[in-house]
């Protein structure tokens, strides 16, 4: 079975991906003309296939090809956003955050047990005991 595709409609990457999905069911060979305008796909079933089965295989392949072409287009369109998201995630994971201004190593050096900000000190110890008759300031 031979399928002839226009490479302007279906990019080569999508064709390769679609073919890859079928290499367990068929032997596939690809060829193109000198200008790379059309890509010819030759299918040969691994087992002997009837006309109906071949037609079914062709239909399934064309559907898969459409799916791969769409996925390829979406991934191409979203490339910048994807790279930005991954870059942002890696940047935050590295410890170089904009808020702290500390590198990962410096942040690790700050030991919470030392309590440099005095958070663990009780209120009474820090500001004295609360007087019972003290009137609240208005």
């Amino acid at each position: 079975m031979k399928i002839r595709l226009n490479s302007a409609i279906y990019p080569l990457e999508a064709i390769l991906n679609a073919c890859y999905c079928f290499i367990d069911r068929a032997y596939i060979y690809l060829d193109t003309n000198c200008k790379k305008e059309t890509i010819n796909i030759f299918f040969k079933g691994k087992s002997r296939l009837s006309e109906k089965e071949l037609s079914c295989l062709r239909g399934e392949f064309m559907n898969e090809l459409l799916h791969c072409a769409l996925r390829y287009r979406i991934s191409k369109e979203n490339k910048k956003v994807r790279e930005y998201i991954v870059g942002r995630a890696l940047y935050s994971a590295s410890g170089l955050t904009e808020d702290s201004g500390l590198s990962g190593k410096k942040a690790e050096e700050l030991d919470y047990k030392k309590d440099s900000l005095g958070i663990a000190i009780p209120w009474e110890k820090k500001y004295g005991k609360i007087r019972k008759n003290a009137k609240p300031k208005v």
Partner: protein
Amino acid sequence: MPSLKFNTKIYKKEAIQKAISAYSHLARFRVKDDKDYKVVEIDKVDPDLKGIFCDEFANYVLGMSKK
């Protein structure tokens, strides 16, 4: 001697090389350049695989080209 013509616009040269090294214990290969094609001549194929060897090899190259 069977031969396969791989168009270099579709199949990667590295993929052909990788496939040859993966199948080298089953046959003997010779690669020639022919304009846009890499012609792989296959010789001394393992007798058990004679019927399917070329097709399986072409599929392997396709799989490697996709990666």
